[in-house]
């Protein structure tokens, strides 16, 4: 198939299976195109095939490009799928690093929304890209968490990547593109959000990610679809436990029973993810640098833990200076202050 042929079928692939069917029946894409021009193909398909130019114009308007299987920009991880999309319509840049998917129900509780947002932030802070579906509820909260931390995020849509759906997530759409992320879809620009398109896109979400985090899921719904696809694709599955009698948590609790890793909080998630993805790209560099000057002296004086009063006395410094320096160390993640005690974090000790 020539590039144009494939692009043509991509457009026809408002239902990708239909495109494959046509190619199989008529031998090649070129034959389908020929037959379409002669009017010997079903009217609906024919119109779409011959409307190729209009579709290209829509792509240009949306600043969207088509990436096909085998192209250099096509995400390698998608080849793990049994049914990878032939073509992706991409706005923005798909990050090359392994990503983390955070998904969940649209009908989430405030518990789920809060956690999804904190996970989005934690994942972004650790330096991993976040993939989700831009849907209402958990997806949106996770995206917003990432955006807040200025992280990179990818939204995989079940409609055209230029279609604002749900409409109130337009801000996420824009922010993802502005912070170096991407909005992608296997459907061409202008494709309307029909319900049947959403379950298939879930395989792309898990396909792009090395790990999938399910925050809240009912017993039916897209989140569990994503989870089961993730299982097939060999992705590591995390799930947030919840009340056993709460609708929105039944799916997650089931996943945990069946072997998903339970998440006990944002820090726990980052820890678990580093076992799968390797050390977080951002914090690894940060923790390596030990503060020098006053901060370093305070660290040494505080090992393993001390009150600010003790530190000030040991170093003979005014308490105001010591307090400011401790706050700075705390912001840098070198110490934790708990119950009036300054505790030096592991790995921050004196170099021996």
């Amino acid at each position, binding site marked *: 198939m020539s590039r144009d042929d494939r692009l043509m079928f991509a457009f026809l692939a408002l239902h990708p299976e239909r495109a494959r069917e046509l190619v199989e029946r008529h031998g090649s894409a070129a034959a389908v195109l020929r037959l379409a021009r002669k009017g010997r193909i079903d009217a609906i398909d024919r119109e779409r095939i011959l409307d190729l130019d209009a579709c290209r114009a829509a792509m240009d308007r949306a600043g969207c490009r088509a990436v096909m299987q085998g192209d250099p920009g096509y995400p390698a991880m998608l080849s793990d799928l049994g049914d990878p999309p032939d073509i992706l319509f991409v706005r923005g840049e798909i990050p090359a690093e392994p990503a983390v998917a955070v998904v969940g129900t649209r009908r989430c509780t405030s518990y789920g929304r809060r956690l999804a947002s904190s996970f989005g932030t934690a994942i972004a802070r650790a330096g991993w890209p976040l993939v989700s579906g831009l849907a209402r509820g958990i997806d949106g909260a996770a995206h917003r968490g990432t955006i807040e*931390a200025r992280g990179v995020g990818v939204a995989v849509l079940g409609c055209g990547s230029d279609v604002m759906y749900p409409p109130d997530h337009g801000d996420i759409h824009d922010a993802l593109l502005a912070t170096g992320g991407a909005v992608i879809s296997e459907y061409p620009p202008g494709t309307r959000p029909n319900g049947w398109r959403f379950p298939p896109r879930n395989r792309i979400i898990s396909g792009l990610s090395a790990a999938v985090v399910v925050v809240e899921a009912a017993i039916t719904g897209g989140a569990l679809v994503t989870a089961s696809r993730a299982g097939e694709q060999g992705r590591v599955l995390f799930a947030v436990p919840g009340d056993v009698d709460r609708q929105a948590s039944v799916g997650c609790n089931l996943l945990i029973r069946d072997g998903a890793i339970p998440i006990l909080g944002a820090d726990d998630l980052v820890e678990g993810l580093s076992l799968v993805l390797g050390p977080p790209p951002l914090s690894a560099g940060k923790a390596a640098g030990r503060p020098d000057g006053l901060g370093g002296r305070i660290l040494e004086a505080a090992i393993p833990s001390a*009150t*600010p*009063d003790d530190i*000030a*006395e040991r170093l003979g410094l005014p*308490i*105001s*200076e010591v*307090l*400011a*320096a*401790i*706050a*700075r160390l*705390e*912001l840098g993640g070198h110490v934790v*202050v*708990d*119950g*009036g*005690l300054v505790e030096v974090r592991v790995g921050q000790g004196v170099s021996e």
Partner: protein
Amino acid sequence: MFACVTSAALVGVEPRPVRVEAHVSGAESDRDRFNIVGLPDASIREARQRVQSAILSAGHRFPSRRVTVNLAPADLPKVGSAYDLPIALGVLAASGAVPSSVTRVVALGELALDGSVRAARGGLAAGIVAGRHGVPCIVAADGGTEAALSGADVRGVTSLAHAVAVGLGEDPGLASPTRPNPEQIPAGLDLAAVRGQAMARRAVEIAAAGGHHLLLVGPPGAGKTMLARALPGILPDLTTVEALEVAQAHAAAGRGPAVGSRPPFRSPHHSATPAAILGGGSGVPVPGELTLADRGVLFLDELAEFPTHLLDTLRQPVEEGRVHIARKGVSVAFPCRVQMVAATNPCPCGYRDDSRTPCVCTPRTVDRYRTRLSGPLLDRFDMRVMVPRVEAAELIGKGGEGSQSVRQRVTAARRLQEARGSLNRALGREALDALPWSRGADECLVEAMDRHALTGRGWDRVRRTARTIADLAAEEVASDAHVLEALGLRRVL
């Protein structure tokens, strides 16, 4: 015949003139008719007996005709025995027993049956009303101090006859000391008595300088209460106007004027009723501890022992500086520009995080203890400081810096704030935005926000504290060091 004498009543803490009108009329047969109208309470109705006896004891005849006394404005509820003296003067003038010029005064006092005058509540209000009207204020000689706080022309009298003489200008009356004796005011605790606790001392100093709300958390015996009690000692003196406001609040609560120029320190017990703390009571609302601490310190010891609903009702008045109280027919707003200082143990047994004594609380009881202190209330403390146990070596060591030198720094920082027009505690978001911040200061704030160390309200509170720290250092621009120290003094409980 008709006569009118002015007296005074407090509405909330606001003095209002009360006109005492007396009318004598009718035939001799109407004898024994003596009525008082105008929302008097039982104690005022009893004035009839006291006034009759006192007039007889003063050597005058009580009119044998119908006597009607009206207290105006009629819709203002009036309480207490303080109107005895103006009623008696009015009746004497109306019956023609003394010249009517005796009524050109503001009078207030309780009469004894033998005609002597006793001090009554409301002396300060009478003084303020007299000052406004530009007439002399006649009160009992032993209660003249309170009225004299107003700066009015106060003349103390000992008896009804004496009051008549003073009213007619035949006698100058007795002078009263214009200010209470400073030695009478408890000086509070000197900061030098607090051993160790460098961070907590620093927090108290900053709190004093900016008027910030401060929460002290620590095990029993760490010195939290001592630190709080040392706070008023490092606050600057009240201005004359402030001292008068404080005296007014105390007078409205019927507590006498002994306030002087030092900021008040009130420490209500956690078993106190909401009315005792917020103000209230039946009939005319009376100020509570919150208002008595106006311009001073409200100290809540054992914060977690206070009923949660009471703490929640404190939030808004403390923020606004006013507490609104509505009772049947009267609604008043009492001032409460207080600095809230609270102390609490970290857990029910008190020894959580302690270096020596193990904590015996279960996680559940700790949780329950902490949920009593609602997040929104904790958020309103500008500073939340841990006060650890003091080691024995520090206890026998030398004491810290004394209150006097700390007060000098605090006063200097306050002066900078006065020049800006507002105490740092009261700075709003826009005012804070308008102040100069170094680039590093902004960066620290953003970073703290990003790390979830700050809420939106906390953002402003940290900036207020940082501003005070800069003021103590006499720096015009608040820098990152100031913001960081403010962050370090605002710990999550």
